[in-house]
């Protein structure tokens, strides 16, 4: 609970042997793959936005190790309530790059029928819950799901992911308090990237750390190096195991840094100190993990090159197909308000069809 930061792999790639999780070489490569894929998708997403081909984009650059490490500690039946900066959990559960780009374009093939902004994914069959823009609302929701899991006697866990700024909202407090009182299998993952748009952590909270806030609820709190995927994995795995044993919730603070602007609508150079960015560049989680894999003798350059190439090709293809899709049908605008359209919605749709016969 102290300010101590759990680190497994140092910046130079050296590992703290005693803490190294027991993962096979294949698993380690998987972790690398997930992080890299997130990075590559994000790079392209930001570019598309700048080209005016996407309306909006929000990137996880520099923070990939947080949700990839945590998500990797989960089973597919565990529910994930995402922050908007963690597409990797869906991807590691089988969401394709194509599916993602359909969502980004909000087209007719989008699984959510173009209902939400880019990056606000929803993958029901992967137990990844619909991303919400309003911050922290997912926290008490995850607690409710953990309650239901426990009530149904299942040994699954629910994990909620959010940012450092999000800890200031009432819902953070309320959710963690319920989880601790009910002693639920619920894990709270704070992506502490030091900023909430332009507001630095020092203006967000005066507490020693985010992890220490766990004390207010009588729950476990840990602080990990969020640019060290093995540290995040290790802490998450311990939390998950504890949760499955019925020992209650954990707050994980993963200390990382937002390497991009907040979103495509933001220009972080207006407010972030350049040196800070430079310093964090050297801590890049993907490069660090590469160093670790090299030291360990697991690194395979050909494999890495191919992975990069393949992913980029998938992305390119996904964009092409996504851009070729039409918009969702007009009728979809009144669907999914309720299980069934009401007469009022039918009437409003008919009105629209009458005044806009040109729209499909």
């Amino acid at each position, binding site marked *: 609970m102290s300010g101590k930061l759990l680190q497994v792999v140092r910046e130079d790639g050296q590992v703290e042997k005693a803490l190294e999780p027991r993962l096979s070489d294949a698993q380690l490569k998987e972790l690398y793959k997930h992080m890299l894929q997130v990075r590559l998708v994000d790079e392209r997403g930001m570019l598309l936005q700048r080209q005016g081909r996407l309306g909006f984009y929000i990137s996880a650059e520099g923070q990939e190790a947080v949700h990839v490490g945590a998500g990797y500690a989960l089973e597919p039946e565990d529910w994930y309530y995402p922050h908007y900066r963690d597409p990797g959990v869906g991807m590691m559960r089988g969401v394709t790059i194509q599916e993602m780009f359909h969502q980004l374009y909000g087209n007719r093939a989008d699984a959510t029928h173009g*209902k939400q902004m880019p990056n606000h994914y929803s993958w029901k069959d992967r137990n990844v819950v619909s991303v919400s823009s309003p911050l922290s609302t997912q926290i008490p929701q995850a607690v*409710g799901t953990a309650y239901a899991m426990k009530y149904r006697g299942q040994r699954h866990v629910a994990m909620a992911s959010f940012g450092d700024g999000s800890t200031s909202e009432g819902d953070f407090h309320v959710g963690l308090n319920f989880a601790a009182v009910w002693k639920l299998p619920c894990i709270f993952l704070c992506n502490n990237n030091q900023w909430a748009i332009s507001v630095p952590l020092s203006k967000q909270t005066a507490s020693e750390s985010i992890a220490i806030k766990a004390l207010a609820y009588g729950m476990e709190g840990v602080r990990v190096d969020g640019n060290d995927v093995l540290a995040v994995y290790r802490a998450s795995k311990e939390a998950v195991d504890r949760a499955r044993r019925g020992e209650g919730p954990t707050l994980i603070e993963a200390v990382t840094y937002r390497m991009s602007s907040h979103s495509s609508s933001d220009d972080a150079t207006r407010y972030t100190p350049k040196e800070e960015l430079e310093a964090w560049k050297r801590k890049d989680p993907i490069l660090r993990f590469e160093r670790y894999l090299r030291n360990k003798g697991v690194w395979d350059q050909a494999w890495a090159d191919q992975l990069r190439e393949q992913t980029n090709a998938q992305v390119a293809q996904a964009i092409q197909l996504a851009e070729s899709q039409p918009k969702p049908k007009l009728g979809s605008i009144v669907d999914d308000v309720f299980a069934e359209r009401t007469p009022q919605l039918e009437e409003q749709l008919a009105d629209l069809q009458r005044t806009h016969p040109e729209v499909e």
Partner: protein
Amino acid sequence: MSRELTVVQAVTDALRTEMRGDDSIILLGEDVGLNGGVFRATDGLQKEFGEARVIDTPLAEAGIIGTAIGMSLYGLKAVPEIQFLDFIYPAFDQIVNELAKFRYRSGGQYAPNVTIRAPYGGGIKGGHYHSQSTEAYFAHTAGLKVVVPSNPYDTKGLLIASIRDPDPVMFLEPKRIYRAMKGEVPEEAYTVPIGKAAVAKEGDDVTVVAYGSMLHVALQAAMKAEEQGVSAEVLDLRTLVPLDEDTFLQSVKKTGRLVVVHEAQRTAGFGAELVALAAEKAIEHIEAPMLRVTGLDTPFPYALENQYLPDVPRVLDAIQRTVSY
């Protein structure tokens, strides 16, 4: 078999009946367990169904609704109680931005099945914070259904229908009449359909629309009007969203005159919606100003609550003004 129950007993009875047959139903809220709710609406249910199904939560409405959503996404049917509707606002974000929009934003993937019960309305000397009628906030929030019973039979049937309904429902209980009347309530489970208004009294000269506790004020005023030779038809809306436009418009077209009664403040209240509908879809039948008898555009007062709430003289006055126009 049926027996005489009050409105609040019908709530308890609905919950008990439905919970016996469906272990996915979970009740949660402040004081709903051991204490059986501050109005005793959940009396005895924790004893029968255990602490895992009838939960005394910490004191945080956002937590109550937020966790209810999470439970229901996992397949449970959550029936949270908000102790007074006046205290629902800490959960407003969870209701308006989450509960109401989950199905839509996920393209139908995630559809929380939550029925929020909340005692509402005035008449208990509760001042601003134990008397509010803010049903219009919810009616103006796409994705929520809004149900308000006015008698014991409907209370049980509508509450069961709400729990079974796959959509989020705001189930607003008129606490002023929790114990004001008894009525026959069958022992077994039954539903009263959501989205159907009732003609509480037939009449020809004017349509008076009300719901919840105001239905009874409207009925009394209609009886008085009858004595004066005015035949008022009284509609009990029962569901605000989705509205039973057919029954409403039919009556208005028949009488050509409309008076709407609600406790909520006038400006932008649900009464405006009803008048606007008639003005759009039945204007050619309208023979007089359409009037609203409502709470004032003030917070709910304490000492003068009887002056704030619509009463028989005010409703009668409106009836007279519209028929004598």
